C-alpha cells in the first residue's frame, strides 16, 4: 500500500479480509509470509506498529468502561499525541457526549465512537473493517468526510475493508480484491476500473462462443445471439472477438461492483 493512499480492500464473505487485518494487529498467527506496516514487522515491532496504527470496526466493544468519557480516558492514556481539541470536535460532529452510556448507544453511534477513538490519536495508518455498517446515509457521508480530512495532508494511509463498493469506488484511490486469501486484483482505482469494459456483441450462431473463452473475457450472460461479457483491455480478447465473428461490439465503462461480481463468479467457476 502506498503511503497516503486510501486503499479499499474488497472481497466476498469469508475471503479473508478481517483475518488479514487481525493478523496485522497480532490477532492470530500467520501461516506463512511476513507483514510489514510503515516498515515495521507486525511481530517484532508490535507495540511501535500499534502506536502508529488504529483500528475501527463495529465489532469492537467498549461497554466495560460504562460511559463514553471513560472509554476516551482509557484510550487516551496510550497515546501521548492524543488530540483533545480534535476529539472534542469529533464528538460534536458525531453527537456524542462524555456522559453517554455505551450500553445505550445505537449500533451506528458505537461505530462512530470507535471511529472517534481511532481518529483522535492522529494515527499514521488507519485500518477500518466495515466502518459504515449500521450508519445512515448522512452519517456515512460524515464519517467519510472526517476520513478525507484526516488524510488530506497526504501523510496518513487508510485501509478500508468494506462490502459497500460504491463507497469504496468514491473514496478509495487504490483497490485490492481478495478471495480465499488470494489477491485477485490490485492497483490504482482508476487504472483498475479503466482496464476493464463491459462488452456487448452479437453472433450469427450462438454455438460459436462456447467455453473455453479466451483469457481476458468473462461471459456474464447470453440470450440466443446476444452476449454480455467483461473484457480485459490489456488482453488480446477484443481482437479474438473480432476475428471470431462477433458483430456490433459495444464497450461501456464498468463499475467496481460489476467488476467485483464478474471476477468473483469466474473464480468460483474455476
Amino acid at each position, binding site marked *: 500500500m502506498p503511503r497516503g493512499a486510501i486503499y479499499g480492500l474488497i472481497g466476498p464473505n469469508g475471503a479473508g479480509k478481517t483475518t488479514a487485518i487481525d493478523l496485522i494487529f497480532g490477532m*492470530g498467527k500467520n501461516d506463512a509470509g511476513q507483514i510489514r506496516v510503515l516498515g515495521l514487522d507486525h511481530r517484532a515491532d508490535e*507495540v511501535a*506498529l500499534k502506536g502508529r496504527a488504529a*483500528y475501527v470496526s463495529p465489532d469492537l466493544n467498549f461497554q*466495560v468502561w460504562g460511559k463514553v468519557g471513560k472509554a476516551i480516558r*482509557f484510550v487516551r492514556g*496510550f497515546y501521548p499525541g492524543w488530540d483533545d481539541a480534535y476529539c472534542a470536535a469529533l464528538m460534536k460532529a458525531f453527537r456524542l457526549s462524555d456522559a453517554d452510556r455505551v450500553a445505550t448507544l445505537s449500533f451506528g453511534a458505537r461505530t462512530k465512537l470507535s471511529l472517534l477513538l481511532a481518529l483522535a490519536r492522529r494515527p499514521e495508518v488507519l485500518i477500518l473493517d466495515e466502518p459504515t455498517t449500521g450508519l445512515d446515509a448522512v452519517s456515512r457521508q460524515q464519517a467519510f468526510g472526517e476520513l478525507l480530512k484526516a488524510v488530506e495532508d497526504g501523510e496518513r494511509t487508510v485501509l478500508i475493508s468494506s462490502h459497500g463498493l460504491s463507497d469504496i469506488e468514491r473514496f478509495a484511490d487504490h483497490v485490492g480484491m481478495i478471495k480465499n486469501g488470494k489477491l485477485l486484483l490490485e492497483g490504482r482505482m482508476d487504472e483498475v476500473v479503466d482496464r476493464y469494459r463491459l462488452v456487448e456483441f452479437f453472433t450469427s450462431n450462438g454455438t460459436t462462443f462456447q467455453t473455453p473463452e479466451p483469457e481476458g473475457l468473462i461471459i456474464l450472460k447470453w440470450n440466443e445471439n446476444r452476449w454480455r461479457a467483461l473484457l480485459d483491455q490489456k488482453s488480446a480478447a477484443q481482437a479474438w472477438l473480432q476475428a471470431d465473428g462477433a458483430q456490433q461490439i459495444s464497450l461501456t465503462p464498468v463499475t467496481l461492483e460489476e467488476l467485483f461480481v464478474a471476477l468473483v463468479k469466474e473464480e468460483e467457476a474455476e
Partner: protein
Amino acid sequence: MKRLMLDYFRRWAWMLALGGMLEFGLGWFIANRPEDNFEFWGLMLALWTGANLLSFDLRRGVVRAVAPLPLTARQIGRSWWLATVAIPTIALAALLFAGAGTFYHFQPSKVFPVGRLALASIIYLMWLGAISCGTFSATRGSYGSWRKFASTGVFSLLSGAMILGGMMYFQDASKHSFKCALLLGVGGLLTVVSWFRAEQFSLGRAEPFNPGRAGIRLTPQPATNRSTYHRPLEGYGGIPFLISTGFVRIFLYVAAMLALMALLQQWQGRAMPGYVSISTFAAMGSLMSCGFIIVVQFLPVLRQLRYLRTLPISATRLAATMLAIVILPLIALGALVAGGTGLVLGAPADLTVLKSYTFILAPASLCVFFAVWRGDGIQTYVLLAITLFGLQLVQLRLQMAFHYLEPPFSLCGTIAAICILLAFLLTRCALMRSSHTYRVQANPFGNIALGMGR
C-alpha cells in the same frame, strides 16, 4: 412450542446428559449416606441443567432468531420455562430416585430414603425456579415505569441472594426446619414468579407495537444527546486506569459479600471459633471471591479483548494485565480478610485464611487462561467450574495428606506461583497464536440485560 423445547434440548443435550449422570450419582450418594447434606450439589446441578443454559442462548442472540417464528412472546417464554424448570425437575427427580433405587438394589439391607429423596426433588424445583426467575427478570430490563424497575430489581436481588447466599446458608436446609421452610417459601415464590415472568417474556426490539392506554398518538422521543460536550478528564488513562477502576469496584463488592457471609455464618449458629468453621469460611470465601471476580470483573473485560489487542501494548503486557485484573483483588481481599480474622480471632485463624486465599490464586490464574483461550462461552464456564472445584479437591487431598492439618504456607505459595507462571505463559501464547480468542465474542450486549435488545 414443542419444537422450541426440542431445539433447546438438542442443543444442550451433552450438558443435560452430563447433569443427568451426576444426578443419578447423587441419588446413589443420598441412599448411601442419608445423614449427609445434598443441598449444595443439588444447587450446582440445577445451575447447569436449568435456565443458566438458556442465559447463554440469550447472550448469543437467540431471541433475534426465534422472534420472527410464528409464536407469540408468551408461547416462547412458556416453552423455555417448561424446558428449564418443569421438565428438568421431573427428569432430575426421576434420576435421583433411579440412582437411589439402584443403590438399594445392591444394598437391600439399607433403608430406602423416600422422604429425603422427595424433599430433594422439591428443593430442585425451588432452585430451578429461582434460577429461572433470575434469568427471566434479567430479560425484562429495568427501563420503563418505576413499578417495573422496582419489581425487576426486587426479584433479581431475591433470586441472586437465593442462589449465591443459598450456596452457603441452605447447605443443611433439610436438617433445619426453619431453613427448610425459608427455602421452600422463597423458592416457591420465585418459582411461581418465574412462570409469570416467562408469560410476560419480552422480545425486546421485536416486540409488536402495543399502543396501550396512550393510544396511537405519536410523541417526540426524548433526545439523549441534547448536550454534546467533551471535557478532557484529568488523571491517568491506559492500563492503570482499567485495573484501578475495576479493582476498587470489585474489592468493595466482594468485601461486602464476605462481611455478609461472616454474619450469616454467625447468625446460623456456627460460631466463628473452631477449626472447621474457620476453614469452611476461608475455603468458601476464597472460592466465592474468585468466582465473583472472574464473572463480574474479568469476563466483561474479556469481551473487549479484540479492542485491547489493537492498542499499543505487547501480548506479554496484555497477558500480565489479564492476570492482574483477577489476582490483585484476590490478594487485597486475602490481606483484608486475614487481617480482620486475625484481629478478631487471633493468629492461627488469620493464617488459615491467608493460606486459602494464596491457594485460590492457582485456579484463578488458570481460569484466566481458559477464558482468554476459549472466549466467553459455555466451554469456558465448564472449564472454570472444573478448575475451581478440581483444585478445591486438590486442597482437600493435601489436607488429608497432612493428616487433616493445613498444608504449609510454602506449599500453597509454590503451587500458586507455578500456576500463575504457567497461566501467564499460556495466556500470552493464546493471545499471540489463537485467532479463536478474538472471534468468539458471544455477548454483543445491548441496552437490555443479557444482550437481547440488539
